[in-house]
Every structure is written in C-alpha cells, then in structure tokens.
C-alpha cells in the first residue's frame, strides 16, 4: 500500500480517515516484529473523527487523512515518549515536538510510537529497553537502527509514512536494510524542538516511505523554520511534492573511486552497478571522484557524537522527571543508581567515551581533532560539489544481518555507518532508496546532495522509481 494511494483514498472520500485508522490499528495490534512501543488508539480515533468532520480543511494538506507512526524520540504532548529507554519509560512530555505538531496540522493521524535504539544509539535496533525489532524480511534479521521500528513499519505495510531521525545514518541505513526509501534532510531544515537530543550538531529528523513521493509529501509537512531552534535555518520556499515532476536533465553524478576497497558486500556492489546504469539511462553523466578521506569520518563521529551525548544526557538525573532509583541514600547515590539503572550498556559506554574525550588533557587530542577532521570532510564535499551535482554511492556495507551478530572486529557495528556518517558530519542532505534484491534481501543506494538540494534528491529518486520496480518489493 503506498502513500499516494492512501491519500487519494481519503481525498476522493472512498476511505474515511476513521476507516484508515481502524485498519492500521488492527495491524499495529497484531504486529509480531516488536515495531511499536505504545499505540494511542483512543487519541487516533478521536483525531480521525475530527479530520473526517473537517474534510474541507484537511483535504488539500500534504498528509490529509493518512495514518502515521512517529519514532519514539519525538515528544508527544501528554502521551508517553520513551526514546527506547527505561529512563523515560513512563515519561509524558507537557508539549509536542515541532515535527509532530507540523504533521498533525498537515492532516496525518498518529497511531503509535515506534521502537528505536536507546537514545538513538545503535545501528540494529537491538539496544532498545523494549526489546529488539525484527526485520519484516526475516524475523531473525535486524531492521537497522536507530530508526529500526519506523523503517520496519513501512516495510511491513502497517503505515505508508513514518518519521525517523538520522545522526550517523539512522534513517538511511534502516531504509536500506528494509528495502524502503528514507531521507536525511540538510541539517537545520527540520526543527529539533521536541526531538530528544543525542548529538545536537548532527541530529536531523526525516521521512520514511515506500517511495520518493511519500517522502516528499512528508518532508513538505515536517520542514519549517522554527524560531524555537537556534540551529534551524530559513527554508527555501519549495514544495517538494510539486518539484518531483521537474525535468532535470544531464546532471553530473559523482561516483567514488575504489569504492570496493571499503569492505562493501558484493551483493550491494552489484546492485550499485545496476543502478549506475539506470542513472545513465536517465540521461545523467557519471563522473569518478576521489574521496579517500571517507573512512576518517568514523573516527571523528565516534568522538563528537559521544561527546555531545554525554552532555545531553546529563539532564537524566532522577530529580525532575523520568526514572528515579529507589535506592537513594544521598544525592550522590541518587544520581549513580538512577543513571546505572536507567541507561542500557551501549548508552553508558558512549557517555563514558564522551566524558573522556572532553576531559581536561584529552580535549585537544580528541574533541578538537575530531572537529578538524569534520572540517576536512566538509571541505572535501564542497570541492566535489564544484564538479558534480550529486554523489551516488551504496548506503551500507552489509544487507540485513542476524541479530546478536558476532564479529571478530569489535568495532564492526560502528563501521556499518562508514558510508552514511560523512553526510552527517558535513550537514548535507542524503537519501537512501531500494535498488535491488539479492539473496532475497534488499540492497540500498544513496544519493548525497549539496546543502538544501532535497528537491533534487527526491526528484532523481522519483525518476529512478518511475523506471524501476525495486521500491515495490515486499517481503
């Protein structure tokens, strides 16, 4: 079921919002993949009724009458928002995040909050306090992370749109592993107000859908210039959905030299080659570019992200909200116990790394250096975009892998983000779309664009999806 059809059903009055919501709730309740943390049936039905009763007001909105699932990282007023953590398992925010507010005003109906890696830290949705999510393509397989739940939700045909967040690849990588389309916008395009912070200088909210069309409409709804977020930039006046139809010929698309040298699985490389041909068939020119600095992105990311998160998570102290330990002899104990009980192992690990790299004596050697590597990567992108309009590369190193995967390389999981991290460091927009089926599992291709070129990325993806069927694959 795709978004365009669902929305058309509402607009043509063939299916009411209420009926769509009831259908969706059934699927949520029978989900065996552990995709959802909380379902809000009563509120959803109430909103659906409201939308049906105000048809005229909502029929022209980008998301009119369509059910949506939000990653449980977005604050929803008076409705539990857990961020995948024990620390917030009963937390009810007194306010809505801008993303949720925008989607509500655009006619969508929130059905449920999706499962995710705890505090957005992870690449397989296995660190959630609420248990791992299974990939609809294979129950023993991971859907990717940290937005594993939101990606699986689309792949399992439960909703046609969902929201995610991408700090090091957490939208694009699950999109690739689940065979759907997912996009990380330019840093600052979507407001971070109400989005629980992991790494403030890289976190960005973005859309999931089966195809570019759904992503475009959802991005139209999500993006806005928000004065409550100092890092939010003024948005171009673009309707992404409309610009899908623009005719863009003869683009120069960069492909990275020696990409095989990065340890990418051959299935993914094969799909990659095929999609290159498709791009050429659409009339675009492929140009080889050099990006040897690509791999240093991981080092920089795993300094900066833990550093910022160690600070962002200090507010979880058991004093004013969230979990508080019952073992509290004194204040110091309160903190220690609350935080050891409330956080999972991966979160604790990253907090410790972050604390260390910001420490006196280590700041220059780690944090400052990592920010310099970040500059190098941004500069490199700028240089590349002088010669090409887009960069095309695979999204991940691997297809969906087994849960509890053992690896001789203790850093294997971190290295999964190799191809997605550079766009986060530089703040550039990037999209992942399904580009093949190998061994009965999806592969993903990634387009990276210059700042605020979301329209370009969505347009090209849409054109690819007009001449191929990969986005229509289901498990």
């Amino acid at each position, binding site marked *: 079921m795709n978004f365009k059809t669902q929305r058309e059903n509402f607009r043509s009055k063939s299916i009411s919002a209420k009926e769509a919501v009831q259908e969706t709730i059934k699927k949520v309740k029978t989900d065996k993949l552990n995709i959802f943390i909380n379902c809000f049936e009563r509120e959803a039905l109430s909103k659906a009724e409201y939308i049906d009763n105000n048809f005229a007001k909502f029929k022209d909105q980008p998301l009119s009458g369509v059910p949506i699932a939000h990653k449980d990282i*977005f*604050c929803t007023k008076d409705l539990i*928002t857990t*961020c995948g953590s024990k620390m*917030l398992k009963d*937390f009810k*925010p*007194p*306010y809505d*995040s801008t993303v949720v507010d925008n989607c509500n005003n655009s006619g969508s109906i929130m059905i449920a909050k999706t499962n995710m890696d705890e505090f957005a830290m992870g690449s397989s949705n296995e660190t959630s306090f609420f248990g791992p999510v299974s990939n609809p393509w294979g129950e023993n397989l991971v859907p990717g992370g940290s937005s594993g739940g939101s990606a699986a939700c689309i792949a399992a045909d439960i909703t046609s749109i969902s929201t995610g967040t991408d700090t090091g690849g957490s939208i694009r990588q699950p999109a690739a592993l689940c065979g759907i389309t997912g996009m990380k916008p330019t840093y600052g395009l979507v407001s*971070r*107000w*109400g*989005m*629980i*912070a992991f*790494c*403030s*200088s890289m976190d960005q909210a973005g859309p999931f859908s089966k195809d570019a069309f759904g992503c475009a409409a959802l991005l139209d709804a999500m993006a806005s210039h928000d*004065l*409550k*977020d*100092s*890092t939010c930039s003024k948005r171009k006046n673009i309707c992404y959905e409309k610009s899908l139809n623009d005719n863009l010929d003869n683009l120069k698309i960069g492909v990275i030299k020696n990409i095989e040298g990065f340890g990418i699985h051959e299935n993914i490389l094969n799909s990659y080659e095929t999609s290159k041909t498709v791009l050429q068939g659409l009339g675009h020119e492929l140009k080889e570019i050099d990006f040897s600095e690509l791999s240093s992105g991981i080092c920089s990311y795993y300094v900066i992200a833990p*550093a*910022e998160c*160690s*600070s962002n*998570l*200090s*507010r*979880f*102290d058991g*004093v*004013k*909200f969230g979990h508080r330990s019952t073992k509290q002899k004194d*204040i110091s104990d309160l*903190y220690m116990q609350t935080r050891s009980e409330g956080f999972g192992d991966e979160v604790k690990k990253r907090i410790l790394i972050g*604390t260390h790299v*910001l*420490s*006196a004596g280590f*700041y220059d050697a780690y*944090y400052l250096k990592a920010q310099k590597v970040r500059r190098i990567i941004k500069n490199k992108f700028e240089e590349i975009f002088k010669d090409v309009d887009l960069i095309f590369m695979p999204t991940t190193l691997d297809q969906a892998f087994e849960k509890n995967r053992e690896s001789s390389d203790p850093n294997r999981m971190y290295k999964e983000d190799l191809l997605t991290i550079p766009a986060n460091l530089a703040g550039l927009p990037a999209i992942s779309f399904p580009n093949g089926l190998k061994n009965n599992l999806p592969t993903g291709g990634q387009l990276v664009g210059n700042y605020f070129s979301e329209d370009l990325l969505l347009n090209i993806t849409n054109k690819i999806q007009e001449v191929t069927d990969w986005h229509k694959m289901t498990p």
Partner: protein
Amino acid sequence: MAQNDTLVKGWQPVIGLEVHVQLLTNTKLFSPARNKFGEDANTLVDLIDMGLPGVLPVLNEEAMRQGIKFGLATSAKIAKTMIFDRKNYFYPDLPKGYQITQLHFPIVKDGIVDVDGKKIRIHQAHLEEDAGKSMHDQYDSKSVIDLNRSGVPLLEIVSEPDIRSASEAVNYLKKIHQIITYLDISDGNMSQGSMRCDANVSIMRPDSKEFGTRAEIKNINSFKFVEKAINFEVKRQIKCLEDGETVEQETRLYDSIKDETRSMRTKEFANDYRYFPCPDLVPINISSELIKDISNNMDELPEEKEQRFKKVYRLDDYEAKVLCVEKQTANFFEEVTKNCDPKLSAKWIIGEINALLNKNDISLGDSKITPENFSSLMAKINDGTISGKIAKEVLEEIWNTGSNAEKIIKSKGLEQISDETELESIAQSVLDNNPGQVEAYKAGKDKLFGFFVGQVMKETQGKANPKSINEILKRLLSG
C-alpha cells in the same frame, strides 16, 4: 606589585573579585519565562528552564545589549564574535546537568574600573545562566528545589588580581555597583542576590615576583562582609605560612556569624567541567553598528554626569561626586533644579536628605520625598518664608507624611517672622529683660551676642529671621 600602605604584618594581600550580576531583562537568558524576583516557587519556570528532553535555548538579545553596555562603560573590548560554552557538572539545582556560559569568547574583555584614582583591570565579563535554588530547612532528611532562578541572565565580571586590600575591594565593588545601576542593567541588590561576590585571596612577600596560592571565598552577601571575609582570610593565610604550613588552593565559605572562612568538603575526585562549545547555539557576531547604536543610546555614566553637573550647575568636585554616587539621587537633583537653586538643593540633598536616608536605611526612591515636595521646601527657604532651622523641622514632616512645605508651614504656623517692627520690639524686650548680660556684653563679652540671639529665637519659637535679628540686635546693642 606591592603597595606599601596595604601590607599586613609585612605581607602583601592580593585580591581578585568575581562579581555575578543578575541582569534586568524582562525574560531569562535562553527562555521566555519572566525574569522576576520573589514569586511563588516554581511559577517562573519554562519548559526550557526545566531542561526537559527535547528543549532548546534561544539567546535573549536584550541580555546581550546589557552586556555590551557594561563593556562600553568600562572601556573594554567588545567581542567581534562571542560563543557560548557548556560547563558540565551535576547539582540538583542545575536541571540540564550543565550551565551555558562563556569561556574562551566572552562578550567583553579587558576593561578598566577607576577606583579613587587607581585603575583596577577587568579580565573579562561574560554572560551565563543562573542556577535554581536548593533549600534544606523544609524537611529533616530531604532538600527541596525551586527552579524560578534557573536560567536568569547573569553577567559575571572577573577582575584581574589588582586589588591590594579589603577596603580597596569594597570600593571596587561599590564602583561596579554604581556602574551597573547607572546603566540600568541591574539593581545590584546584594541582600536579594542580584549582585553576588566571590573573592580570590592570596598573600605574597612584597619583593616576590610570584603570586601566592589563592583561596576562593564564597557566600559573601554584603559590602560589610566582603571586607570582613577578606580581612579574616588574609590573617588566616599569614598565620598558615608563618606556622610553616602551605595555603591550599581550595574553596572556602564565609560564615558571617562566626566571622570566619571554612573549607568546603573536598571531593575525592576533582571536578572537571569538560567545557565545549554549546551545539544548540550559534556564534554571535557583534557589529560595530550595533555597538555604536547602543553607545549612542546609553545613559550618562557617573564621571560624565559629574563633569556636567560641575559645569552646568557650578557645583564643586565634592558636591558633584556625592550627588552622583547614585543615579536616582542625581536624577532627583536635576529634577528639582528645574525650579530651585542648584547650590541650595545640593546642600540640602547632600546634608539633610542623605542623613535621613542613612539613618532610616532606605533609598530615596522608597522614601516619601519627591521632587515636588522637596522643591516646595527649597522655594520656602529661598523666599525667606522660613529659616534654615525651621526648614529642618519641615523636612522631617515631609519625610514622615510626604506632604508639601506650604501645607506644613501653614498648618504648624511656622512662617518666619521678618517684620522689622515686630522683631525690633521682641529684641528690645529681650534686652530689657536681661540687663546684666547687656552690661557684660557692652563691657566686652562678645560671646553673649549668641545668648541674645538665642533668647529671641526662644521667644519666637525659632521663627525669627536670623539675618534681620542679627542686624537689629547689633544696632540695638551698639546704641
């Protein structure tokens, strides 16, 4: 580095002050909650001040303007680019587990404050958010937290260690107080906590080239205690070193009841604040246009006002200085001189009014004295309706009731007697009733003149015009 007149038992005290000033903005530094004192607990707390998951700070531009004003008033360098950093530590009244402050790129750097002719350098002044309040008396085994103060804008003013004595420290503090109140950026109220002071104190030998180890003294909440705390600490450090011990680099609390400083419990592990630039905020470039705009719209500073008062109102150095100590007094003076003689007004404000304010320990603005009722008094003195002595009585009444001089004089019948005929007859009757003293005076006891004046005043309940009486008595006694 040594100042001989400030040595204590042969040691040179070296003092630096860190003054935290709460700014007079409408809202907090990064949240739109009201910036107000004294409201019910936890009613001035925004989502942002709670540090809730997902909230983000946005800079209050008025706080920035007020910081720039301070920089201009102290001839400091205003940052071309200022950056906010996070200072990370855990405390129950610090909701986010970090304070947003400025470390490397503060709004103001390298200022100067003139303290009685000596220039004390300001290392930097930076913007930062205040923390909430924790209180410990409500429950036996628990403490409580009020977040009203969390997020209030502070300007932290850090001096260089240029101060050499406790009294110099107090004068520096008074000068800072004067500047911030003149600029209207703070009400500088130490007892309410809108101005707080920590002192860094060390001692060294006068001929030494290196400073000694310094201790930081906290919990000083009045000008008087600043002096006492520093004096105690200097003596403590002298005794320490002379006993062969070393001074610890530590934080000490001042106890005003016992008049001593005490070491705070030292922690097993040092606190490492792990400063880094706050990723939720962006650098602010301060343009020269903005600085010029603020400079052009700034109120006069104390020195400028003093100069102007001397020139325009022909006041002397002392008069101008005293009138300008507090902006509200200077403004009051200017208001009354619209209708009154400046010299007369100055004399009365500096003398009688200030005495009343000090005695009753309130400020001019909180008293019942207004430019109107004060002017009315000056007018009555000027036109001879009452004498200076009677005027003091009238002033007391104005102080108590806020009424104007005219009404008071009428209701109490205090008009000065200036009628020559009436005065002459009273004077004559005094002389007639005291023949002995008249003889003595004429024989050469000049001092008795005062006695006759006093008797006339007694007869007239002080209402005789002194000038007239002097002339009349002289005339009558010479004849």
